[in-house]
């Protein structure tokens, strides 16, 4: 904790003010304040598009210990609107490290605040639910007034801000994995995808093509894919009718896997409803039970919405449940080639225990062909 950092505040819409020190870019940042309980993986969290529009409060108190490296990007840039930490490390230690956390945030114009009681903030969010907040160097009263006038997270479609503009092939691993031309072609609808999804599918010998979230179903089908994966992404699925209608056109035509937001979209496409969780699931330690095998898996999670179990249409079955709060963690369709998960089989950050789900998807493609 060097002393050269300016004073800053985290203000929350409940009126609470948390004094700390500015780091990263010295600008104001605002968004929905959420907490993540992972103990490693801050770089992946920062670059995960599902955090667009959010200020992320890391519950692990020491951030930046191993710096920022080339390998841990999950998208092109930092996606969070701001970072909240107890302490950030100015002298990171790792052979791969190229920048400090502070430099990284500052270079991308993202504000951070350190020195705040991140556990107190987490407890507040846990008991009152997630809420809007701002990292600011202004007087707290002024910042709170401004905050009240800003667009709310729930009303914003962040998918459009994070999705790719261009279609692209994921080929950065081509030297490692020979692409079998006969193998499957998978389209990944980029609602805010993480690179690790593409990496893991590519490692399984598939051709992987990311397409913009707004790509019409017809255009996707015209590309003649073996399967389509609807990616994770930020925000309320109820704002995303264009994705819902696209997906409903694809169902039954081609095997579909949905992850996180993709899971919620698929559920909506079949008529189910989604709702907002009080404080969401964000971390790397959530136990999920696979109802078919009765096995428990530790999962990486990052979602603020969930599918309402009372709204499930016929044919859509719960395949996975969260052991902590009993919420739906996975769905499968009894007739159509569709399965979805609410958590992140691509992890990054988080346990690698669920990569088998990509094998399952590839297997589904095999069966469909």
């Amino acid at each position, binding site marked *: 904790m060097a002393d050269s950092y300016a004073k800053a505040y985290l203000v929350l819409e409940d009126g609470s003010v948390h004094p700390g020190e500015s780091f990263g870019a010295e600008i104001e940042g605002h968004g929905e304040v959420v907490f993540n*309980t992972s103990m490693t993986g801050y770089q992946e969290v920062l670059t995960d598009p599902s955090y667009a529009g959010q200020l992320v409060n890391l*519950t692990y108190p020491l951030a930046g210990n191993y710096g920022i490296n080339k390998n841990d990007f999950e998208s092109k840039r930092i996606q969070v609107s701001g970072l909240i930490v107890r302490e950030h490390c100015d002298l990171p230690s790792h052979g791969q490290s190229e920048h400090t956390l502070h430099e990284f945030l500052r270079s991308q114009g993202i504000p951070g605040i350190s020195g705040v009681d991140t*556990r107190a903030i*987490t407890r507040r969010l*846990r008991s009152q639910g997630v809420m809007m907040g701002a990292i600011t160097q202004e007087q707290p009263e002024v910042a709170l007034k401004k905050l009240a006038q800003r667009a709310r997270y729930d009303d914003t479609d962040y998918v459009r801000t994070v999705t790719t503009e261009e279609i692209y092939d994921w080929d950065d691993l081509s030297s490692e994995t020979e692409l079998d031309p006969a193998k499957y072609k998978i389209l990944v609808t980029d609602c805010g995808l993480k690179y690790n999804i593409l990496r893991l599918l590519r490692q399984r010998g598939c051709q992987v093509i990311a397409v913009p979230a707004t790509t019409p179903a017809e255009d996707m089908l015209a590309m003649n894919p073996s399967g389509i994966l609807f990616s994770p992404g930020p925000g309320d699925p109820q704002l995303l009718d264009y994705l819902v209608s696209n997906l409903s056109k694809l169902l039954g035509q081609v095997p579909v896997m949905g992850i996180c937001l993709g899971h919620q979209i698929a559920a909506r496409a079949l008529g189910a409803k989604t709702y907002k969780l009080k404080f969401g699931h964000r971390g*790397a*330690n959530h136990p999920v039970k696979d109802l078919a095998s009765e096995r428990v898996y530790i999962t990486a999670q990052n979602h603020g919405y969930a599918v309402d179990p009372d709204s499930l249409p016929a044919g859509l079955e719960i395949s996975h449940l969260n052991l902590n709060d009993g919420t739906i963690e996975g769905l499968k369709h009894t007739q159509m080639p569709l399965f979805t998960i609410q958590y992140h089989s691509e992890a990054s950050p988080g346990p*690698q225990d669920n990569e088998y789900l990509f094998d399952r998807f590839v297997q589904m493609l095999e069966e469909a062909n």
Partner: protein
Amino acid sequence: MADRPEKVLVIGSGPIVIGQAAEFDYAGTQACKALREEGVITVLVNSNPATIMTDQGIADRVYIEPLTVEVLERVIQTERPDGILPTLGGQTGLNLAVALADAGVLEKYNVRMLGTPLETIRKSEDREFFRQFLHELGEPEPNNVSVSTIEEARIRAKDLGLPLVIRPAYTLGGTGGGIAETWEEFETIAANGLARSPISQVLLEQSLVGWKEIEYEVMRDSADNCITVCNMENLDPMGVHTGDSIVVAPSQTLTDKDYQMLRSASLRIIRGLGIEGGCNVQFALQPHTLVNEALGMGDQHQSPYYVIEVNPRVSRSSALASKATGYPIARVAAKIAVGKRLDEIPNAVTGMTQAAFEPALDYCVVKFPRWPFDKFPHGDRRTTTQMKATGEVMVIDRSFEAALQKATRSLELGGRSLLWEDQSWSAREKFSLDDLPIGPNDLRVWALMAALRRDVSPGTLVRKTHVDSWFINALARIVAMERRLLSEALTPDLLLRAKRMGFSDEQVGTLADMLPEQVRTQRLQWDIRPVYKMVDTCAAEFEAVTPYYYSTYDQENEAPPLPGKKAVVIGSGPIRIGQGIEFDYCSVHAAWALSQEGYSSIMVNSNPETVSTDFDASDRLYFEPLDEEALRDILDNEAGDDQPPPVVVQFGGQTAIDLSQSLGNAGLPILGSSAEAIDIASDRKKFEEFMVGLGIPQPPGATVSSVQEALTVAQNIGYPAVVRPSYVLGGRAMEIVQNATELIRYLTVASEIASDKPVLIDHYMEGKECEVDAICDGQRVLIPGIMEHIERAGVHSGDSMATYPGLNLSDEEIAAIVDYTTQIGVALGVRGLMNVQFVIQGGAPYRSPFLSNDGRQSTTVYVLEVNPRGSRTIPFISKVTGVPVVRIATRVMLGQSLEEQGYEGGLWPTQNLVGIKAPVFSMVKLVGVDWHLGPEMKSTGEVMGIDRDFPNALTKALMAAGLSLETGMGVLLSIADQHKAEVASLVLELDQAGCQLYATEGTAAMISAMGVPVTMTTKKMGEGHPNVVDVIEDGNVGAVINTISEVSSVLRDGYLIRRSAAERQVPCFTSLDTARAAVQSLLMEHSNYSVQCIDEYLDGG
């Protein structure tokens, strides 16, 4: 489940030794409770009476018996359990289970091995099996080879090249292992390792010294669900035993990819081993580029990591992981062992979630080892692959710097904060880094701090020590703050920053030139106070119900004062020689007693290995250093706007007693005996006046504070004299001096040890030693029993064998002991416990317990010392008398008289049994430490032998302590001149038992003269073979009897004898009294000892 066992045998870990401490009492206690919750009947066997697990109400059937195959078979025969849980008793439990299986006992009685399959134990313990297993699994392990002979070792070592790590198979805490950097070292370590391994096998392994050392704690259930509870990173890189390393949880320098790579490997390993329960996996991870360069390694490694070791059981690391995360590994492991799945076991911390999850920490945990080098400053202080620490402390904070600083405060090394420097480091005019012990040793962290203060760059230290720069940089930040505190005026902002980095008020005071009390006052004026945060396993994601807290300087306090009646129990801190698990036993019982009386019990302790720091042992737990600042902050926090709660200081050993004065000075209420009463008993001068007032005889002596004064006093009272600093623990720095020269030598050392404390000198009385623990309510005194020592006075009571009841005391002597104890208790105003030690003068110096008392000369009972607190014999005396000593004492402190509790006072009726407590040493681990018994305590643990009569109780005590002699075995004698007359009868008895006698020159001459055959061996090492050490190392000798004289050359020869005995793990008797007991036990019929449940002994049937 259909195949759930109905009755399960749990094996405890036996006495506390280095490498196997209180963590197994914690694990075993949790497991027994967990099994009983599942409706499983539990049968527990442990030889260690100072454990909670051997208490009533923990297991259904408790056997305090030696841990041998023979005894276990008899227990199995009686109890007929259908399952055995070997994974909770450390290496001892695991080895014993394997031995039972090998002996066919498990098969014979149809007992199923639960938790870890037998095959897996073999795999992970036998290096060759383990190599194969890793190979099949595709997990990388360093180039290595197992060898069984020294010739084979030499040949294979040439292929692998130096440096090499040598690891013996099936040993505890790496006993007998080491790192060889030269061929000379290789010869010594390899030979030693082969000798130490019970199957004579060692692993030679490519050295990964300097790599990062990372551990994972993993759980798996019968449905193949796996989780990791915690990972840990060692500050000390590879090359130092993890028990001797500073350990941080979670890892600090691993990216998520590093973390997950090792996590996935851990899961593959536990699955591959088929463990149902817990497992610990240790990895070496490629170090930072800087270190790699310093090690001269390119990137030529086949793998970024290697698997180093797997422990298929609950371990010290798992106890640490449990306390670090709140996840009760032993409890969950026990439930898994009887068929429960992780998702069927509730998470006791949150009360709402299940055990199938991975804890998320929102704090940083530091574990710091506690080494015994304050007692053995001349031992080999280097830390290697063989563990030397007796205990450890754990602290929790929200930054590494703060946690590390609090950890050093918790060590209780005479207030040694990170500011401490050895005087010699500044002695030279010109600073050289080579003068600082920055290599692996117990002072490393202080040396690194000293180097940084002398402007050595962090990079240099990283290259020299291979400690990751993240840790070195953290130390540098602490040094930078020291400089600010030295140079800047103290402001609220600066003080808050210092507190957030873990600086104590005392450290701030030292740097800012203020008294600690001034800093505290200023701090409170500025409203800078610690807050208390909960350890909840989930980083606050869920509401939790555990009352488990740590302090930090942050905004929100989560621990409002507990409502209603409450009291604070001060625990006993890290396990060290002189302050062991016994005090944790007392603390836990005090907390329980408080709860029973309607008080909320608040526990404060810093030791992660113990039952007292289990989250359900008290109503609220503060995991904090046991020092004045931490205690006063806690009391302030609990006071709220009201009065602070009273503090119980009688059960936490000397740690808590020492705090009583400062708490008393701060006007804080102490429960039970007042700070004043404690002061009288502890202050020699006041105590002497007090005793004179009562007319109770004491050995003549005085308190002195100068050499001149000391010499005068010693002249008056007469030599030999016992000298010691006042306020000492476990006889630390206590010595017997024979003349003025020795006294002067002692005083120059002792005055360094405690400059502000005077020295006590007493006339040394050689005689029968006895002690009592007693409870006084101010009116009456209850004495549960009298314990008689087998060794005469002069051997520290903690190192003596003690028998209950006193078998050899006359009615007059007993009456005097009871009378003196009662008088002292009442007059001193003791409310609660006290321990009184006596020496009886006159009559024979040694009285055989086998002989009758008739025809004795008249004797005088002297009081040696009074300790106004619970002593280390409380668990023993509670167990052999059935008197719940701590509970009664706690009630007394709360104001209930003995009478109200239904006790009359005086001596409690003698039970129809004999209990013998025997000390256990860890000498094999402490290279360079002399074994001979004296006034300075050296044992690390204790065992108990209990039976209907003395011979059988003695047999079992010796058996459990590993001191049994066998008919026909070789016995080496080397006896000081002044003991030769006394040893004659012993020689005849050994001969009668068919023992082959070996003796050094003078002793051999004496034995020959008695007409007993003896082999003479020289003790002059330079003069031909076989010398006395050869005889021991060749394995000819099964026991050594060696008494010391004060001539220093003789002492040195004897030292070599005692060290080789220690290293060969041959019993070494340095007191003739112990030897005599062992020999007499040998001559008795001792196959008829009983094996009974402790309740059955107490029933008197």
